[in-house]
């Protein structure tokens, strides 16, 4: 809370971000929705440098091998369930998972 931005009136929740191959995005989406997330945001055309090298963001005729990012916000008490599934999924396939605290103005959207 040291950034100076007021979080007065906001509700603390957990933000989960996952970057995976486009091929695996459907698994992540299924896990999110079946383990506590009401919804998610999916970004395609994600590019960047990872530990195994660079990843091109957008390919002309291949939607499956470019990276996708899924973002979900869940109540803190659901976060462990979601993370448990995602960690199991990522144990055998490439991808990164970020879990962080976040604040939302409309908590009812995420519960």
């Amino acid at each position, binding site marked *: 809370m040291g950034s100076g931005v007021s979080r007065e009136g906001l509700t603390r929740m957990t933000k989960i971000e996952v970057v995976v*191959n486009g*091929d695996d995005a*459907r*698994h992540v989406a*299924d*896990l999110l929705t*079946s*383990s*506590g997330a009401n919804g998610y945001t999916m970004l395609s055309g994600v590019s960047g440098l990872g530990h*195994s*090298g*660079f*990843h*091109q963001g957008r*390919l*002309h*005729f*291949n*939607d*499956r*091998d470019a990276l996708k990012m899924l973002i979900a916000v869940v109540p803190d008490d*659901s976060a*462990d*369930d*979601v993370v*448990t*599934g*995602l*960690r*199991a*999924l990522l*144990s*055998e*396939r*490439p991808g990164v998972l970020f879990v962080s605290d976040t604040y939302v103005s409309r908590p009812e959207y995420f519960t």
Partner: protein
Amino acid sequence: MTTTTTTARPVADRARLLAEVANAARIVPPVWPLGQFIAVNPLQGLVDLGFEQATAEARKWLGAATFPSRAHVATAVRSGRITADDVAAALAEHAAAAPDVHDAHDDEVDGVLRALGGDTEADARQLPAMPRTAAERYDARHATSVAATVDERVAAVCAAYAGSGAAWAGPTDRGFWSWWSRGDEPAADGLLDALDRIGLAPGDHADELRGQLSRLPGWAGFARWCDEWAAGDAPVRTISLIDYLAVRMTVEADALEGQPDRPLAPLPRPRREPSYAPSEPAGLGERVTDHALDVIALEAYERNHRMRLLDELSRSWLSTRAANPSAAQVVFCIDTRSEVFRRHLEAVGPYQTIGFAGFFGVPLRFRPAGSDASFASCPVLVTPDVEVTAQPATRALRRKKIAASASAARQQAKAAPGAAFAFAEASGLVEGPLAAARTFLRRRTKSAAGDAIAVLDVDGFGLEARAAIAETALRTMGLTDGFAPLVVLCGHGSTSTANPHFASLDCGACGGNRGGPNARVAATFLNDADVRVELAARGIHIPDTTFFAAAEHDTTLDTVTVFDVAGVPPTHADALKSLLAAVEEAAEATRLERGGRLGVSARDARRPWRRALDWASVRPEWGLAGNAAFIVADRNRTAGADLEGRAFLHSYDRDADAEGTALETILTAPMVVAHWINSQYYFSTVDPDVYGAGDKTLHNPIGAVGVLAGPSGDLRIGLPRQSVFAGDSTYHEPMRLLTVVDAPVDRIESVIARNAILRHLFDGRWVTLVAAPASVGAPWLRRRPGGEWVPA
């Protein structure tokens, strides 16, 4: 069925289970329904592991053979198809991968050659799979056959559910698990219950699930397709993986509970798993193990082909040819079957041919005239969001709808599970003479009728989308100037009768469909004046005198049908007429060449429709059998070379692609599809039992889903035996794809560096990559995993 739990499972347990199921499913190939059958690498889920490790997993879990049989290799050695030079080079490559061992020396080469060329009564390399499931472990202890009983029951239930058209199959709006269990318990809970009943601890779930999926890889693979690839409007009743496993494990738990010696104690896992990569030396020194012999044999076999192909290409590659103006340019699909036709067409007259993916860069869903359903007509790697409809005149539409519904009812009756035989009994008096008539009568094929006369509604594509599609297509195929007055975009399809795997002979770039609609849409865009203005703004100037026509090549008949002939301007009518005359001449030569490979007389080769319309024909054409190479280069480089219908040819202008944008598109999409095709042919050949669909004469279609070999059993995957074998002999040469690229090494490396899929394919030894020489005397260079370039 027995259920033991009424309380809901913790969410975390379900989540972990879902993830473990998804991971376990990587061991089985996704199995597309028959109507959308496309070639896929059956180890596609493991491609990131590399060929060596992925095939080890296949041997371990599926008991699959993953290398050419020793008998095939021995024949190759004895016929000179594998030489001492090939073996020496393969041994050197083997040494390069394991730098601690010495270079090959002559006596070792001789020893390997003797070992590979010796008599092989049987392939001893294929070990029985280790017990993978609870029932298998029980059987191993008690000499029972519980596992086989479980398989039989599960396969029957799957066939009853997924095969459409059976009135007794139950309601379609319930999932597989709910339909079978007649309850509302979530499938994940049902699966966890069954795992508990069998006595498996959570730490053992992952291996158990993988083993369970490996027992019936066909039905498991179909469930994987349903989870990972099916669109919302899939033309079949889908089965999710979690539903499949919940049913399967419950059947297994029930079966085991019915056995004596209950409760079932979990068997201890073996202390050391059986070796599926036998490490016993084959008597050839310390490092040449039996498994290494397989690796060396495959590399030697591939190297022999590679050197012969590069020799053939060297003759044409840098030869100087006068740039004669072309009367017409004809763009064919990269499909290996196009190469034969292109070569003969070029020999007939001043025609330039170009290779490009047969969907012509237009991702679309196509709704045929009079149909209520549409299908994706583009590579399965792409998800189309625009639908194109074919709209005939009203009276024609009405007639077509009536005919379509009658045909659908008849097809449905034939396709119901177990109904193929019943249908034959009930309708034999009528169908028998019809089938006989179909054998002897030549009739118009669907390529020349039906949708060909319909108008296509392409309004779903806006101007920006049309221009982007046109630009990408032209730049990727290297056609940005030098347009001929007539450019023909020629898709392709095939013609066969009573062939459940017909889609495997159609255009893979169109998702296992005929490519005519895509060609027509692309031609429409390229003739669009507004699109041409946009293209000019992007630096591509199509002359006003250039007209794009659309056509479709039938690869069984070797006929070419031109669409929308009435729309061809009078100024281009003569050019089209001349081209069609040349096409007919080329077609005749092509039919004779293909007939030679099919082993038919010249007379029969000239009458391909007899094979195509013969309901008893098991091989209307060879399809892509023999495929071996993917060549990315201007056609000038390869024109004149006889590539024997074995190469995918993608045109590419190395001088117009300094950034590698077009090359990146070619390698990450068409080449990936070519690798899938190549891998399917490879694995269907090296293990026709596990990865092949078996004998066509025994095929029993299960709805629109797939085929069984006979009345029951697993859904068969891969290609029919007759697609890769000629009698008892292997027709298709099982080799991993060789990709030849006409581009500087640093450009190729930059494309690889930014695409993980290419690193997996090249570094993982799924595909061998060769860079072409830029000047006379320069060597062909081969890329080793990691990026070292060595003489090919």
